[in-house]
């Protein structure tokens, strides 16, 4: 049982990393960004390029992967999403889906369709409550909580964070204060993508890496965002860990049904709290 709880925390941490970007882009730009899958996947592939092919150390590869994703995310935001701003959201969705398709094919082109394995970069265990926990995963959970606190501080303390919160309320109001909102939205988008890559980097050693890995996780994160409330930072944090725990508990009794359970939870939430986008 201890292990199940810990496993739930691990999944929750990963879900949190990846869904925070989705939630923020929705909150600010009111766009569900399907291309999130692909920035995440590309980030992981860049990581394995450094770690597996160049044999560099894992942390260096991770940092380089996050840095590499920033211009890619910026280009997607600048040339696809911003151009469709104010248009029907269906078109934005189709366009970001198209970007995801192109990205998947690009990955297949460069790295090939076969999955890659990646081993735990630390490999040591911590014995706690009679369970041996991989230190790597403990680190993951700790960084998720740290990230939550950091984000909270970012939005509470920095002027940039405050401007983003203000823009969530009233975009035109911020514009009329002489602040170029689009610039901050780009920042949010890039930040969300970078965090997704961070999540991907944490997740990579415990999952298989293949071109379509982004889809399943995006759908789970979408469920997280719906349960937690779009654009709601605290809600996203709580729902990520709650659903992570749900997955872990389900997996204990019915290993194959873990994902299905998450979607059932999402459906239940939708019945009681319909949303309009």
């Amino acid at each position, binding site marked *: 049982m201890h292990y199940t709880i810990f496993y739930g925390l691990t999944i929750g941490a990963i879900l949190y990393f990846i869904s925070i970007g989705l939630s923020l882009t929705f909150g600010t730009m009111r766009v569900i960004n399907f291309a999130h899958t692909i920035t995440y996947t590309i980030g992981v592939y860049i990581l394995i390029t450094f770690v597996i092919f160049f044999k560099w150390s894992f942390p260096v590869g991770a940092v380089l992967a996050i840095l590499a994703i920033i211009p890619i995310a910026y280009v997607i935001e600048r040339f696809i999403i911003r151009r469709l701003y104010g248009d029907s959201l269906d078109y934005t969705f189709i366009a970001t889906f198209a970007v995801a398709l192109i990205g998947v094919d690009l990955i297949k082109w460069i790295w090939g369709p076969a999955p890659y394995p990646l081993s735990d970069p630390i490999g040591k265990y911590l014995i706690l409550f009679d369970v041996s926990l991989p230190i790597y995963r403990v680190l993951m959970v700790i960084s998720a909580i740290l990230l939550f606190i950091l984000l909270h501080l970012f939005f509470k303390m920095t*002027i940039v964070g*405050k*401007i983003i*919160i*203000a823009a*969530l*309320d*009233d975009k*035109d*109001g*911020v*514009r*009329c*204060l*002489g*602040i*170029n909102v689009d610039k901050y939205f780009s920042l949010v988008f890039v930040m969300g993508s970078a965090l997704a890559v961070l999540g991907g980097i944490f997740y990579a050693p415990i999952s298989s890496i293949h071109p379509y890995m982004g889809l399943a996780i995006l759908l789970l994160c979408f469920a997280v965002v719906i349960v937690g409330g779009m654009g709601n930072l605290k809600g996203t944090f709580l729902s990520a860990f709650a659903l992570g725990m749900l997955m872990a508990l389900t997996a204990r009794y019915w290993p194959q049904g873990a994902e299905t359970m998450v979607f059932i939870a999402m459906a239940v939430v939708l019945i009681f709290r319909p949303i309009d986008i």
Partner: protein
Amino acid sequence: MLEIRNLDVSYGYAKVLHDVSLNIKTGEMVFLIGRNGAGKTTLLKTIIGLLQPQKGSIVYAGKEISNLSPERLYLQGFRYVGQEKKVFGNLTVQENIEIAAFASGEPMDVSLKKITSIYPKIKDFLKTKAGQLSGGQRQILLVGRALVGEPKLLLIDEPTQGLAAIVIEEIIHILDSLKKQVSALIVEQNLSLVKQLSDRIFLLKEGKMVREIISKSEESGIQDLEGYL
């Protein structure tokens, strides 16, 4: 200082403003009155750059500004206070002012001093979430926020709409104290306020500029206006 010539603006399919011309001189407080749906708000939004005119020109200090974005106009000294009394509800009053101070590059304490000088009571709720303020307090916060930096021209949309009489008194007081400091173009329906504060009045009717009343001493002019409203 600001000169609008032959402005045409459409909102979707409907043409809202037809051939509107108007000018504001430095230091003047000009009021824009007219019925609901006459196009007053549209005119303000066009000046501040939230809407694009189809035809005509807006000239400020000798430069054409009709294609500039609100962000650029802010730096030129334009300040817009919208009709909806939208403050940044999830931030505190202080943070609301902070954002404005950041945008104009003014130190926070200077901005605060400016606002407390027109409305000292604001000190009491600096730490309150702006979303919890009453309508009047919101309006005062918005006007105060607009004073941050170096405002040259205030564009205020219906400052007293939906407010209680006491609060209206307060706003009249604030606007009065701003006179001569900045120029202002204010949309208003409350004629007693208009009469008290205005240097000039423009009457907008069905998207067309109907008449201009030069001075407030022209009592009969204002009497007439009531018929239009």
